[in-house]
């Protein structure tokens, strides 16, 4: 049954993060990612005292517990002293500011008169400085609206900020980051929590994304645009789902999140019914290693052999709730396991809703239940590992279980490929910001705005409409060309070669993609090569069917000219006459078979003919010739 989102009080706000196509925001390093690891590594700590954080922020508390070491990979060609936090920032990148202003104006947002760069405190180590530099560039007015099929959504803020460092590895005691990404300019656009359905969220996300692209000054490719989703339902709690990269996942993630919150509320009500109170949930952790001395559970045995221990905790009245599915294929027990993993750095947990199993026997369970001791309605969680880690993990589980009495805790969650999400850390309090005193305020004068207005790119719908009209494309094709940033190349090729626009579009959108999927290095085939190929087709030097072959061949033999390639591929088109001769000789050679299988004759001849004619003649034409020939040669008998 579809959910009634209005009734559930679903509220969604989106935040886009889009990287800009220009050098870094506060230094002159290029915004270029590195594949490899850095040769130079820095080791740092972050020191924040409680007084600095004011009221203790739950996320900060979390980090303090983790007292971590941070390793930073530094790259000679894309990093300087600024990213290493060894020098004050240089002036704010003017081009980045111009792009931000352009996007503000396209979204009908009002630029501020004077920009003040702020330091937003960040404690996960993703910024070497311990803060992220960010500046409010424009604010929403009552004209800053995105229209969707199910209502309008208001835009609130547009900020220009530094991209964080890329995380390589994280454990409770250490996090490793690459500094190539740190400092790339990023704009963040945030909506009000006006979005009311999962589908609407997707629609808004797509529309805004297209506006970013129309500037042609934004980075493209995986990871260059990310959405953070703020979501809550009535009786639930606000979650921040961070860094969704695929648009099509947004509705699925939201549906899963609604289900998760509804189920957690259900669990809360069930616990109330079972009269479980917070004080019933004890913090006691029991060492049950002895029980598993002779165990057949390989997981547990391995941990004990490595010098670890097996600890257990009792969850009073929780029996059956841990196997409750709260997201697609993810139980409440799984949710507890993520807490154990994040806080205790253990591999996972066992719980009695899934035991006996995994080599753990009924007998062993009985012994544990006796030690704890627990009753029929209780559940038990077991963690194995080094004592310190296992203890931290189990305490985190107990803490999370207590939260279940209140329903849904507010968290930052990570989106997964299947549309579910996973606990990352408690939701940080309102971000603490203070002025970046190293950078004086920047005035946005009328001149700057006028300049941006003069160069304002057309709105996406205009660009798509033009493509449809001018080249007789379908709306979908035109939109795809625009979204993939291929519309400019498309127009240039069509202009230059006068080839059928549909052929050019399908080559750009489909052929290149499928060749890439098959391992062809299509990057080697640029605009110039494509223009040459289409010209050859226009001149009749090759049939359009041969395009994939030609591209694949040229990508592999980039030293050859197109003419040489056509020669080698034997793709020079042949005349109707020659084709007829070939087909006739095929029929002649196979005449006995064909007579026996008369009804399949066309198909058989077609197969043989295509072997010889592929790439030299249009397939449809071959088919016509084959049909004619078969009819006259066989039926004429």
């Amino acid at each position, binding site marked *: 049954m579809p959910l009634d989102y209005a009734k559930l009080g679903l509220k969604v706000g989106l935040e886009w993060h889009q990287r800009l196509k220009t050098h870094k925001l506060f230094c002159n390093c290029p915004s270029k990612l590195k594949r490899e690891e850095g040769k130079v590594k820095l080791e740092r700590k972050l020191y924040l005292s409680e007084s*600095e954080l004011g009221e203790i922020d739950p996320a900060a508390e979390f980090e303090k517990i983790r007292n971590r070491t941070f390793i930073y990979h530094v790259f000679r060609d894309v990093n300087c002293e600024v990213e290493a936090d060894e*020098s004050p920032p240089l002036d704010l990148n003017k081009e980045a500011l111009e792009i931000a202003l352009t996007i503000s104006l396209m979204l009908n947002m009002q630029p501020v*008169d*004077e920009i*003040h760069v702020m330091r937003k405190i960040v*404690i996960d180590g993703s910024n070497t*400085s311990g803060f992220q530099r960010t*500046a409010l560039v424009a604010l929403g*007015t009552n004209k800053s609206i995105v229209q969707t099929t199910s209502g309008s959504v208001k835009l609130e803020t547009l900020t220009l900020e530094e991209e964080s460092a890329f995380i390589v590895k994280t454990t409770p005691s250490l996090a490793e980051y690459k500094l190539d990404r740190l400092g790339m300019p990023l704009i963040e656009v945030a909506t009000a929590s006006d979005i009311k359905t999962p589908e609407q969220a997707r629609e808004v996300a797509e529309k805004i994304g297209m506006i970013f692209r129309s500037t042609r000054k934004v980075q493209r490719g995986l990871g260059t645009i990310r959405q953070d989703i703020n979501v809550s339902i009535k009786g639930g709690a606000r979650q921040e789902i961070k860094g969704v990269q695929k648009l099509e996942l947004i509705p699925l993630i939201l549906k899963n999140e609604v289900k998760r919150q509804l189920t957690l509320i259900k669990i809360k009500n069930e616990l109330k019914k079972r009269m479980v109170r917070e004080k019933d949930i004890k913090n006691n952790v029991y060492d049950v290693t002895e029980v598993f001395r002779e165990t057949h559970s390989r997981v547990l045995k391995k941990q004990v052999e490595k010098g670890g221990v097996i600890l257990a905790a009792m969850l009073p009245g929780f029996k059956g709730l841990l196997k409750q599915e709260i997201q697609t294929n993810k139980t409440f027990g799984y949710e507890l396991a993520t807490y154990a993993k994040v806080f205790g750095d253990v591999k996972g947990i066992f719980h009695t809703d899934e035991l006996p199993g995994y080599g753990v026997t009924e007998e062993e369970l009985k012994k544990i239940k006796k030690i704890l001791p627990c009753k029929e309605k209780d559940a038990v969680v077991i963690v194995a590992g080094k004592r310190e880690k296992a203890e931290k993990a189990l305490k985190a589980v107990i803490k999370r279980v207590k939260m279940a009495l209140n329903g849904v805790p507010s968290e930052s969650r990570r989106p997964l490929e299947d549309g579910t999400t996973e606990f990352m850390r408690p939701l940080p309090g*309102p971000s603490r910001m203070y002025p970046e005193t190293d950078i004086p305020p920047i005035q946005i004068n009328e001149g700057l705005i006028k300049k941006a207005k003069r160069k304002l790119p057309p709105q996406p719908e205009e660009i798509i409409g033009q493509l449809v009209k001018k080249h007789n494309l379908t709306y979908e094709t035109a939109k795809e060309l625009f979204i993939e940033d291929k519309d400019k190349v498309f127009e240039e090729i069509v202009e230059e070669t006068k080839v059928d626009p549909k052929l050019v579009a399908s080559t750009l959108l489909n052929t290149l993609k499928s060749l890439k999927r098959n391992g062809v290095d299509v990057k080697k085939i640029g605009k110039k090569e494509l223009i040459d190929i289409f010209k050859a087709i226009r001149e009749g030097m090759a049939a359009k069917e041969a395009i994939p072959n030609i591209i694949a061949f040229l990508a592999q033999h980039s030293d050859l000219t197109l003419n040489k390639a056509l020669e080698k591929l034997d793709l020079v088109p042949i005349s109707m006459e020659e084709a007829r001769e070939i087909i006739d000789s095929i029929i002649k050679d196979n005449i006995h078979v064909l007579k026996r299988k008369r009804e399949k004759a066309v198909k058989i001849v077609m197969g043989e003919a295509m072997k010889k004619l592929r790439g030299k003649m249009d397939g449809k034409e071959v088919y016509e010739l084959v049909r004619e020939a078969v009819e006259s040669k066989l039926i004429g008998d």
Partner: protein
Amino acid sequence: MTLSYHGRAKVFLEEIGAEDFSVVLVKTRNNVFKGVLLPRPLTEDDKHIVLKLNNGYNIGVRIDKVEEIKLLGQKARKVISPSEIIKAEEYADVSIIGTGGTIASRVDYVTGAVYPQFSASELLSRYPEVEKIGKIKTVPLLNIFSEDMRPTYWREIAESVARELNSGVKGVVITHGTDTMHFTSAALSFMLRNLTGPVVLTGAQRSPDRGSTDAYLNFLSAVKVAAQSDLGEVVIVMHQTPSDTYCAIHRGTKVRKMHTSRRDAFLSVNSHILGIVNLKEMIMFSSYSRKAGEGEVEVNTKLEEKVALIYAYPGVDPDVIDFYVDKGYRGLVVAGTGLGHTPEYIMKSLKRALENDVTIVVTSQCLFGRVNMKVYRRGRELLKIGVIPGEDMLPEVAYVKLMFALGNYTEKSEVTGFMRRNIAGELTSSLSLRLFPPTNQIYQGV
């Protein structure tokens, strides 16, 4: 009750009776803002007012675009208590003498303004680990940026150090701005004798308001050296590398700030670092003077302030030298080129200076290596007219040493003898190949 605006903005705000930190409602053609009015530095224009919005961001609003402004109230400003004067503890292991600088600052997160912070309780709350190293007491002495340091402040610091050590603490830490820290360390090295404990200067290159501050490791390492080492020297303890792994312990007369902003800006020049230190360990590499086992620290603050440090370069005007001579200066340190040279056309002025009883010491602007004034003719000519070669001394150290020499001796031979004698580790008899380039010291071990 203050309003920190000037010019038109001031008039504009005074009209509605607003002050810094007033809550105001501002209407422009397209927006309505509610926010806290923040102070605006005088270095900025008078056309904008600065608001802190509810979302935490600050923005500037142009006053001629404001259609309406309303005063809604006053935000209670967080009172930052002035540093309490610390009563001397019954017993302390380490005295912390505060002189100001980045390390002793804290930020008001609303305005971004930096305030001094120096009470023991503040230091303890910032660096709780310090208790594991030893009991500390604090002596707030100065609160200046180190570019404002003066010789007379060196005297105050020296006296304060002597007082603290003589009161029985194991060691002294001096928190200091980094710009001129190496001048102070040199001055203290000459002014303090018979040290009964380590004297450790430290500071910060990244302010303590940020999580990435280097103050934490620097300060705790400095306290550790002061409390636990048997050094009888003045040293600087600052980051050894850009990582938060170890601090280097530099001899106070062989160290220089060599980078504008890096954590590891301080390098030992013509000297190995004495050792490395962090919260867990302290490893000493080089020989050093042990602390005196008995007696009191002696302090001698006599300095001749009429000493100047000048640079030799193509185009340097000999009038500069004449000016100092005419002004009655008694000493000049020349940071010469290469092995210790100066242009021929200033020789006349140098000669005149010497004839007027001005002592001249020649060091090298190369910093690394020793002056040798016997290799080229110019060097020999300089020696002949009577300049003193500064050996491998840093120009800044020679400057401080000359002030001290002229403050204490009048006879030319005494001054010369003092300058050529190793007093506080400032002269090195033999320069090992591994001292240059200085990265050798860090990345290949010492």
